[in-house]
């Protein structure tokens, strides 16, 4: 093995100067307990007062493969992972081979592979970097205790826990929560394993201690959840009463969560025969007047696009979740990407208005869901909520959601009042003469004149009408809604560094660097901006760099004015996106005529890591 990459990465790490971040990575075969150890450590750290950001990597198979669970933590808010970790736990030798280079200087590798020996080059590099490599004879330890192999998880967790200097109380209470239903014997075994693990740490890792920053109470009562959980709760909160889906990573965790909660929510859940069915059933349910949703990933969304087009002409409110992963085709099924923005914006034949929203984190994931339904019903359009595997499966430390924010808006043109229903005419449904393009909607079953929700070009009451004048009038009616919507959508948010930390600001500013992005890249970008606030070694500046991040939540119709204004005043604009073409950049250019100066793009299935992104920013700082 060549040691050059190590020296290079170590150097780039040193440049990344934030001191109060710690990372732990657990690697192993899928099904070996990687997630179990990761989850307990993450939850325990959160309960002890740390902001945790978790990230899972795994392959598209059930058993075997190489998977990892990484936890980054801090006492301040963190929103991303680093490529480098302080503690690496390897359930098998694959982690030793593939991940040894991920460990920070003075870090720890804890492994369970008997007689493991590194090749000379990594051996030397690890020694130079003062990394402790510790073999833990888990099998023998369990044999001595007469405990089944499954207890390895808590044993290993306990060692990590002790290395992090954390108290046994939290760990025991977590174990109690998890195993209390399994009886006294299981609990006793777990407690005993915790003690044995601590003894191992005292005996063999006496000098290896990863010092955590001071804990803060503000994190203790937060939730630890994935973006999929957040979206799930968001759609429950939004009054969604039916969910139809077809399994496809990374949208499946949402389907699992919402289906798993059906006995509490009372929602109608249908696992459909395919994505076309899912889209059609959701559309039928929305047409009748309930709130329904479906979600899928790129390939499934391709199948849904004809239905998207249908909803365009029916002016049927509908909500589609688009959980992105790298394509084309099956691509990298269990990895992340932002490559389907253009798909969301352009999918489906013909021209019709739609709204595309991008989720960026667990906060958005919840709060954007009622908004998505409101927009769909107000404008009688499809709303596509785009997120990615990173959001769907990353683990966030999230304060309890404020439940007073969401409004339920069924649409200003929805007619439900009996008196008003009686006064309606069939021709009000698709009246092309409204100024906003939005016409009256009333639900099937209403005691009122009836209409046809017509997939053919139609006139006011849904009767087929192929005349040129009608085709023109109806197209203009529908497209007018896009202009109405665009004017009503919020502008993108500008984040800047202030004395109090990173804040959004209403006014425009002159910036040294204007960063532009959407979706999950917000997390690592904001974390990198924290870095820009710190004093920079070897770089004397008269003043700190003025860096701003323009985050686009509403991606279509795209309000590009603020980007154009800020870009005109910024010294340099840098687009950060998880795709090859810089798709938001293309859309911004299409809408404003302004191109970004630089692009930091990533399309290898991995999210942006803070240190990596920081290193990639450096050439743009000159």
């Amino acid at each position, binding site marked *: 093995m060549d040691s050059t990459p190590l020296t290079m990465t170590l150097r780039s790490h040193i440049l990344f100067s934030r001191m109060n971040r710690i990372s732990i990575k657990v690697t192993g075969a899928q099904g070996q307990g990687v997630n179990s150890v990761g989850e307990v450590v993450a939850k325990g750290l959160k309960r002890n007062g740390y902001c945790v950001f978790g990230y899972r990597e795994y392959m598209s198979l059930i058993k075997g493969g190489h998977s990892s669970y990484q936890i980054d933590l801090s006492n301040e808010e963190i929103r991303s992972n680093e490529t480098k970790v302080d503690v690496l736990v390897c359930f098998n030798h694959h982690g030793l081979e593939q991940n040894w280079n991920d460990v920070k200087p003075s870090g720890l590798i804890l492994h369970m592979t008997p007689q493991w020996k590194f090749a000379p080059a990594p051996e030397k590099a690890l020694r130079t970097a003062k990394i402790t490599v510790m073999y833990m004879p888990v099998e023998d330890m369990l044999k001595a205790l007469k405990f089944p192999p499954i207890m390895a998880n808590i044993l290993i967790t306990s060692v990590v826990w002790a290395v992090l200097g954390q108290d046994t109380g939290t760990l025991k209470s977590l174990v109690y929560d998890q195993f209390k239903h399994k009886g006294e014997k299981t609990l006793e075994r777990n407690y005993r394993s915790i003690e044995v693990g601590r003894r191992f740490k005292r005996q063999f890792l006496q000098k290896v201690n990863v010092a955590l920053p001071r804990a803060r109470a503000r994190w203790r009562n937060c939730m630890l959840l994935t973006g999929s959980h957040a979206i799930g709760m968001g759609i429950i909160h939004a009054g969604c009463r039916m969910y139809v889906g077809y399994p496809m990573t990374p949208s499946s965790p949402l389907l699992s969560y919402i289906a798993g909660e059906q006995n509490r929510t009372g*929602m109608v859940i249908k696992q459909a025969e395919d994505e076309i069915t899912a889209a059609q059933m959701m559309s039928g349910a929305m047409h009748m007047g309930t709130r329904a949703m479906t979600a899928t990933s790129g390939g499934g969304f391709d199948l849904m696009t004809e239905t998207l087009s249908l909803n365009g002409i029916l002016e049927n409110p509908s909500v589609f979740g688009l959980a992105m992963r790298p394509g084309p085709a099956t691509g990298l099924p269990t990895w992340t990407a932002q490559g389907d923005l253009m798909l969301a914006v352009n999918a489906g034949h013909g021209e019709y208005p739609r709204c595309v929203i991008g989720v960026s984190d667990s906060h958005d994931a919840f709060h954007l869901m009622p908004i998505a339904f409101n927009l769909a019903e107000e404008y009688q359009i499809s709303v596509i909520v785009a997120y990615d595997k990173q959001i769907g499966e990353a683990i966030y430390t999230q304060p309890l959601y404020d439940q007073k924010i969401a409004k339920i808006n069924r649409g200003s043109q929805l007619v439900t009042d009996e008196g008003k229903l009686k006064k309606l005419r069939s021709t009000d449904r698709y009246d092309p003469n409204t100024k906003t393009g939005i016409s009256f909607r009333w639900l099937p079953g209403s005691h009122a004149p009836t209409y046809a929700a017509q997939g053919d070009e139609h006139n006011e009451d849904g009767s087929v009408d192929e005349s040129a004048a009608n085709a023109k009038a109806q197209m203009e009616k529908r497209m007018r809604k896009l202009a109405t919507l665009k004017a009503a959508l919020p502008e993108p948010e500008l984040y800047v560094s202030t004395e109090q930390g990173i804040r959004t600001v209403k006014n425009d500013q002159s910036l040294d660097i204007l960063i532009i992005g959407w979706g999950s890249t917000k997390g690592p970008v904001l974390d990198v901006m924290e870095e820009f606030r710190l004093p920079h070694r070897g770089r004397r500046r008269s003043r700190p760099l003025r860096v701003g991040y323009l985050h686009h939540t509403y991606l279509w119709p795209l309000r590009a004015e603020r980007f154009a204004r800020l870009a005109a005043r910024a010294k340099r604009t840098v687009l950060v996106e998880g795709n090859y073409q810089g798709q938001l950049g293309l859309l911004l250019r299409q809408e404003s005529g302004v191109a970004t100066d630089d692009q930091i793009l990533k399309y290898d299935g991995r999210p942006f890591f803070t240190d990596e992104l920081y290193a990639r920013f450096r050439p743009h700082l000159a």
Partner: protein
Amino acid sequence: MTRIHLDPSARSAFSGQAAPKMSDYHHDNKCTWCDGCGDYGIWTAVKRALVELKIAPHEVMLCYDVGCHGNMSDKLQGYRFHGLHGRVLPFAAGTKLANPRMPVIAHGGDGASFSEGVNHLVHSIRSNYPIVFILHNNGNYGLTMGQASALTWQGQPMNTSPNGIPERTLPSMDFVFSLEPTFVARGFSGHIDQMVEILKAAINHRGFAFVDFLQACPTYNHFATHEWLLEHVVDVKTLGHHDVKDRKRARHLAVETSTHIATGILYQDEKTPSFYEQLVPRQKLKTAPVDEVQRYDVMEYMKEFV
């Protein structure tokens, strides 16, 4: 289990209006089907069945696939939907699950139902959605000018298959029965009274009602013509005692069409619950999903993640 759907008396009380008349279903748009098209008969039968069941136009959801039959969507009153080719069943199922109080009738042709959207037919029967499905069975793709469908007979020169189809004809009734349907009926577009009787039973059926209406296509179907169908269809009631619960005999009657074609209600199973009734979370609820849109408190869900 409670049966939330289909109590005609309750529905009339709900609407609080006089019994509907045929003229209530009248739409000013002129029919555009060919002279002698079977769709005229089916169109009339649907309206008559609804009127006889005292269902007013605003109380029914009529869903249409794409094909000649789909041109019915703007030739009558009622809340109507005209969607994508092959996809009418999942949309119709979605409407029904959202508002189970409303009768839902889905229409599709043999092209849409046995080629483009055959998977939806399979899963709709399997799911036993409480809806009616009318198969407008004219043995070809009429609206795209007479191509062969999966149900076109072999040996018939058609648009795009001048030598007849190289594939075998799909045995549709055998196929449907293999899926364990809970309601199977067959009618003929020339026999309106029988179609009305079938439709009334289908609308009141507990689960998924598969209704196969053989219809003439005077322009493109030169094999099973109106005259040929007239000569071959026989009311099942005239074929000796038939118990609609007898699936084996029903299947035999449905499949065996070499000498005559049995029509009427061939099979009905009222014991199997519908999809909606099978949904555990819905069983204790008296409301429908359309009544339940509001902001929900998720505190108890959030606490589980702390």
